[in-house]
Structures are given as C-alpha cells and as structure tokens.
C-alpha cells in the first residue's frame, strides 16, 4: 500500500476517514482496503464483470447462485458461501478419482482424509459415504 495512485478514487467511511481505494475504473473489481482501518462492512458489486475467471483465493458475487463465491486451492472449485460445505480430501487409491465420484473415507494421511469410491453393495464401502467429488483428484 505504499505506491498510491492519485487518480484512483478514495473510499471513505461515514465520518470521512479514507479506508481504501478503488482501481482506475472506479469499480469494485480491485478494491484495496488499508490494514488497521476497521470498517463496518464490505460491499461487493452484485453485477460484476464475470468475463475474467476468478483466481485462487479470490472472492466475487455470484448472481446465479445469489451469494459470494470463493475459489479454493487448485483453482477448480468455487465455494458458494452459505450454500455448500466442502472437505479437502486425498486420493491414495492408485488411480485418478473423477469429478462426480461418490467417495467414502478410508483413513488419513497427515491432516488429510483419504477417500476411495463408495459402493452400496457392502457395509464397509457405503456406511460412511462422505460426499461427491467437486473436482478430479490425481493419485498421491
């Protein structure tokens, strides 16, 4: 935050304190908020430009789903906040697990749950069914 560009618009709070800046287009695609300056709320553009895909760690309003979405590590999954619950899992089956595969937990490695394909023909592979993969997972 040391290289401020004067042409960019300042954002001020209700008592006139500068709390951030908007980019040169004066939109909210790139909003910088100063550290140490608390604010009551952060407003997102509810009609955002969606031509550019979101990157990992980026947050944007999703008009289709009516909520904010946040792109997770790997860049393949956008979490719709308040509408989804995801778990990070690891694949040690020896083969790729495709997106849309139903999985159950088989154990853990480090802090990650390991999963394999669930199947309803046995107690062991069905009774703890965890969910459906939101992205393909390579082995390892």
């Amino acid at each position, binding site marked *: 935050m040391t290289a401020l560009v004067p042409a960019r618009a300042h954002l001020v709070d209700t008592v006139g304190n500068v709390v951030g800046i908007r980019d040169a287009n004066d939109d909210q695609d790139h909003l910088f908020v100063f550290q140490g300056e608390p604010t009551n709320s952060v407003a997102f553009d509810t009609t955002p430009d969606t031509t550019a895909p979101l990157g990992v760690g980026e947050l944007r309003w999703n008009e289709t*789903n009516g909520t904010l979405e946040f792109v997770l590590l790997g860049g393949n999954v956008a979490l*719709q906040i308040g*509408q*989804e*619950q*995801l778990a990070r899992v690891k694949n040690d089956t020896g083969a790729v*697990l*495709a*997106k*849309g*595969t*139903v*999985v159950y937990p088989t154990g853990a490695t480090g802090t990650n749950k390991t999963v394999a*394909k*669930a*199947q*309803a*023909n*046995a*107690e062991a*592979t*069905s*009774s*703890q*069914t*965890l*969910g*459906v*993969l*939101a992205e393909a997972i390579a082995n390892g």
Partner: protein
Amino acid sequence: MGLVDNIDTSALTEGAAVYLSPTVAGGLTSTKPSSPNHMVVIGFCVRSQANNGVLFVKVQNGFELDEIHNVKITSPQDGQVLKYQSSTGLWINATP
C-alpha cells in the same frame, strides 16, 4: 453438501432422489437400492444432462437394524424376532 455441477447426470431422473449405486463403484443411480444392498441417499438431481448436469448433494447414510439406539442384537440366529424388554427399555433378539 451443496451443488456439484458440470458432471454427467444423464442417467439420472431430474428432480428425483439420487442414491449410491450398488453396481458401479463411485456411481449414482435414481433406482432406490434394496437389501442386501445399502440405501444411501446422495441427494437429488437438479439437472439431468451429460456434460452440464447438476446434483444437489446431501448424503444420508442409512442404518443397520442393530445401530438403532434402543435395539440390542446379540448373536442373531435364524427364526429370531425382536422382543421388547421393559427392564432395559430395549428391543432385543429372542427365539419366539
């Protein structure tokens, strides 16, 4: 829990419940599995489509009879039934 999109749901019935497949590992089916297979509800099909299918996931694992809190089954044998035991408040297996 929530929506998973851009998957192949063409074999599923749109708007209907979706179950864990007993025949395809990791697969889905709109046909309700029956015993001895396990009925695991995965959610329901929001959009039935080959490439842009949408599934709402809300997994509900079923129960075995002996997993119900007030049922205690010990070494079950052919012909036995469940019998109420007032002293423990449990349904137990017994030979009639």
